[in-house]
C-alpha cells in the first residue's frame, strides 16, 4: 500500500499540471526536427563563382554541367564572374563559399589530351561546405572525363548495383527512433528523481521522511510513477511520429508490443540511473545544469543522429556502456527491420542489467535522513 501511495501521489501531481503533459509530448518532436535537420540536412544553395577565362567548348561544357547541378540537386548557386580577383575577394569577404577559375588554356589542353586544370578556391574555414563543394565538383569533372573515353572502354568499367534488404526509410522516418529516445530521456529527467529534488527544494520531502516509508518504497515508488508517466507520453510521441511520417508497422501487434517493451525497459533503466545521479541533489538548478550535459553525453553517442561506426575509438568505447545506444539499436532493428526478440536480446539483456545495477545503487545511495 505504501508503494502504491507514493505512485498515486506522483501521478496525481502530474495530472494536475497540463503544461508539463503538453510539453512532454511536443518537445521531443520539435527538438529532434531541429536537431536532425541541423546535422543531416543536405547543403543547398552554396554561393560559388565561376570565372571562365577560356571560353572554349570544354569550359562551356563544364559550366553546363555545373548549371545542371545548380538546377538539379541545387548544391550551388552559381555566380558567373569575369574577374578572378573579385571572385577570390568574394570568398575572403564571406559572400562566396568557393570559386572555380577556368584558365585560358583549359580547352586547348583538353583537346590535346594534356593535363587540363581548373582552380577551385574554397573557404576552407567552413569545412562542411568546402567538403561538399569539393566532392560535387570532383563528380562534375569526372563526368567530363568520361566523355573523352572511347565507347569500347565502357565494357571494362565495373558497376555496383545496390539492393535494399528493407523498405526504404526516408529522412523523416529515420528520425523516429531518435524522437522516441529523446521523449524517454526528457521524461526520465522530469519525473522520478526530479520530483524528489523538487520536494526537497520545497521542503515537502521532510514530511514523508517522517513516515514509515522505507528507502525502497520512496525510490521504487518514484521510479514506478516515472515509468508510467514516461511510457505513456513516449508512446503518444511514438504514435504521433508514426502518423506524421507514415512508418508502417508491418509486423503488427507483436512488433508493437516489442517496441513497447523496449520503451519500458529503456525508461526503467534511465529513471534508475537518474536516481543514482540526482538522488542527493537538493536544488533544481543543478538538474537544469545537468540536463544539457546528460543529453549530450547520452543522446549523441547513441547512434540516434549519426552512426556509431563514425565515432572515434574513445567515443565508441563510451557507446558500449551507453544505455541509449542499446535502446536506439533495439528500437531501430524492430521498427525498421521488424526484427524479433532474438535479434535484440543482447540490447535487452544490457538494459536489464543496467537497470538492476542502477536501481540497487540508487537505493543504497539514497539518504533517508536530512
Amino acid at each position, binding site marked *: *500500500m*505504501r508503494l*502504491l*501511495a507514493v505512485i*498515486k*501521489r506522483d501521478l*496525481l*501531481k502530474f495530472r*494536475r*499540471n497540463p503544461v508539463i503533459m503538453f510539453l512532454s509530448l511536443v518537445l521531443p518532436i520539435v527538438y529532434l526536427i531541429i536537431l536532425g535537420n541541423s546535422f543531416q540536412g543536405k547543403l543547398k544553395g552554396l554561393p560559388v563563382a565561376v570565372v571562365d577565362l577560356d571560353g572554349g567548348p570544354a569550359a562551356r561544357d563544364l559550366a553546363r554541367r555545373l548549371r545542371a547541378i545548380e538546377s538539379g540537386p541545387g548544391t550551388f548557386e552559381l555566380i558567373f564572374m569575369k574577374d578572378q580577383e573579385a571572385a577570390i575577394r568574394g570568398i575572403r569577404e564571406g559572400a562566396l563559399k568557393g570559386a572555380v577559375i577556368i584558365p585560358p588554356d583549359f580547352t586547348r589542353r583538353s583537346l590535346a589530351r594534356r593535363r587540363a586544370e581548373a582552380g577551385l578556391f574554397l573557404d576552407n574555414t567552413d569545412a562542411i561546405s568546402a567538403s561538399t563543394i569539393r566532392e560535387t565538383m570532383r563528380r562534375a569533372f569526372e563526368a567530363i572525363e568520361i566523355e573523352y573515353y572511347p565507347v569500347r572502354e565502357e565494357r571494362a568499367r565495373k558497376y555496383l548495383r545496390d539492393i535494399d534488404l528493407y523498405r526504404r526509410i526516408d529522412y523523416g522516418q529515420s528520425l523516429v527512433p531518435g524522437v522516441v529516445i529523446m521523449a524517454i530521456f526528457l521524461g526520465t529527467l522530469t519525473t522520478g528523481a526530479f520530483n524528489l529534488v523538487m520536494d526537497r527544494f520545497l*521542503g*515537502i520531502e*521532510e*514530511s*514523508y*521522511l*517522517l*513516515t*514509515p*516509508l*522505507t528507502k525502497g518504497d520512496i525510490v521504487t515508488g518514484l521510479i514506478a510513477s516515472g515509468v508510467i508517466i514516461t511510457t505513456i507520453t513516449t508512446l503518444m510521441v511514438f504514435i504521433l511520429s508514426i502518423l506524421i511520417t507514415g512508418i508502417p508497422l508491418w509486423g503488427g501487434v507483436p512488433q508493437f508490443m516489442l517496441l513497447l517493451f523496449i520503451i519500458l525497459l529503456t525508461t526503467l533503466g534511465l529513471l534508475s540511473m537518474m536516481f543514482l545521479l540526482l538522488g542527493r541533489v*537538493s536544488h533544481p538548478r543543478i538538474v537544469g545544469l545537468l540536463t544539457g550535459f546528460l543529453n549530450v553525453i547520452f543522446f549523441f553517442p547513441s547512434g540516434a543522429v549519426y552512426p556509431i561506426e563514425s565515432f572515434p575509438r574513445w567515443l565508441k568505447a563510451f557507446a558500449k556502456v551507453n544505455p541509449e545506444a542499446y535502446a536506439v539499436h533495439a528500437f531501430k532493428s524492430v521498427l525498421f527491420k521488424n526484427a524479433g526478440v532474438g535479434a535484440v536480446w543482447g540490447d535487452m539483456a544490457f538494459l536489464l542489467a543496467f537497470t538492476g545495477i542502477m536501481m540497487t545503487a540508487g537505493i543504497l545511495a539514497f539518504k533517508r*535522513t*536530512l
Partner: protein
Amino acid sequence: MDNAAIEVRELVKKFGEITAVNGVSFEVREGEFFGFLGPNGAGKTTLIRMLNTLLKPTSGKAAVAGFDVVKEPDEVRRAIGVVPQAMTSDLDLTAYENMDIYGRFYSIPARERKERIARLLEIVGLAERGNDLVATYSGGMRRRLEIVKALVHRPQILFLDEPTQGLDPQSRRTVWELLKGFEEEEKLTIFLSTHYMEEAEELCGRVGIIDYGKIIAMDSPEKLKGELPERDTVLLELPDPAEEMVRALKEFDFVLDVKRENDTLTLSVKNGAHVTPLILSRILEFGKTVTSVNIKERSLEDVFIYYTGRSIREEEARKVSRFIGAGVPSKLVQR
C-alpha cells in the same frame, strides 16, 4: 521513569565546528504538553529532528515512545506525528488527497482512513474545502491542515516545530485552541517548540528554555516565573512628574527603583498588582493625575533575560546568521 514518552540523555549534535545541541537531557511524561522555548538558532529544530529520526545525533541517547531514535527509527516514526516548521502539504493536491496519501503511508485501511480524515477535517473547519486544491488555501488553513495531517494515523506523540510561525494573531489563537482540543480528545503527548513566550505560557504544562544548544531552565511557566526575584514593572504616564514626588515614591519599602523619562515613570516594585493603588494615592497627594497605568507582570521573556542576560528577540537574527556563516547547511537552520 516508566511513563516517559520522551527520554533524552546527553544528546549532542555537531555540524562541523558548530555544536547545535550540546549535551541536552530531559524527559517528557505521557500526556504532557511540553514546550521548548528559545530564540531561533538555539537548537530547537535540530533537537526535534533528532527525536524525529531526521538527523542522527553526534552522541548521546534518545528514546521516543520507548524506542531508540537511532536503533529503532521505524518504530519511532510509527509512534509520532510531526508538524514541521515548513508547510509540507502538496499544493497540487486537495486537502483530502494530502491526508489520504499520508494515511496510506501508514497502511491505514481504506474505510478507517476515510472516516478519520472526514472527522479531522471537520474538527479544523476544513470539511467544506476538503476537495479544494491546497494551493487555494490561506496560511492559517494550510497550518490547520498540517496539524490534522500529522494526526491521521493516531500518533502517541505529536511534535510541533514552531506551529504558528508567520500566522496572524487570530489564526495563531485558532491553532492554540485546536491543539488544546486535540490534547484532550486524542490523549496525546505534545512536544512543541516555539520562540513565542505567550504561546509557551498559554499551552505548555512544562517548558524547557534552550539557548546555544543547552537547556538553561525547565519547569512549569508559573514555577519558572516564580523563581525570578519578586519584581514587577509599573509604567505610569502623567504630565510633568515633579522631582519631589519621585523622591516620595522612592520612600515606599516596596518600590525598588524609579526612572523618569519625560512624562513616563517606570517603577520596579514588589507585588505590582497590590501596591499600585498606594502609588496612585501618593501621586494624587501631589495634585497630579495619572493618565495611564500599565503593570507588566513577569513573563517567560523575563525568565529568559534572567538566565541569559539577553532578550529572545535580540538573539534571533544574530544566531541564524552565526549558524549559516559557520557553514551549517541553511536547510538545517530554521528561521
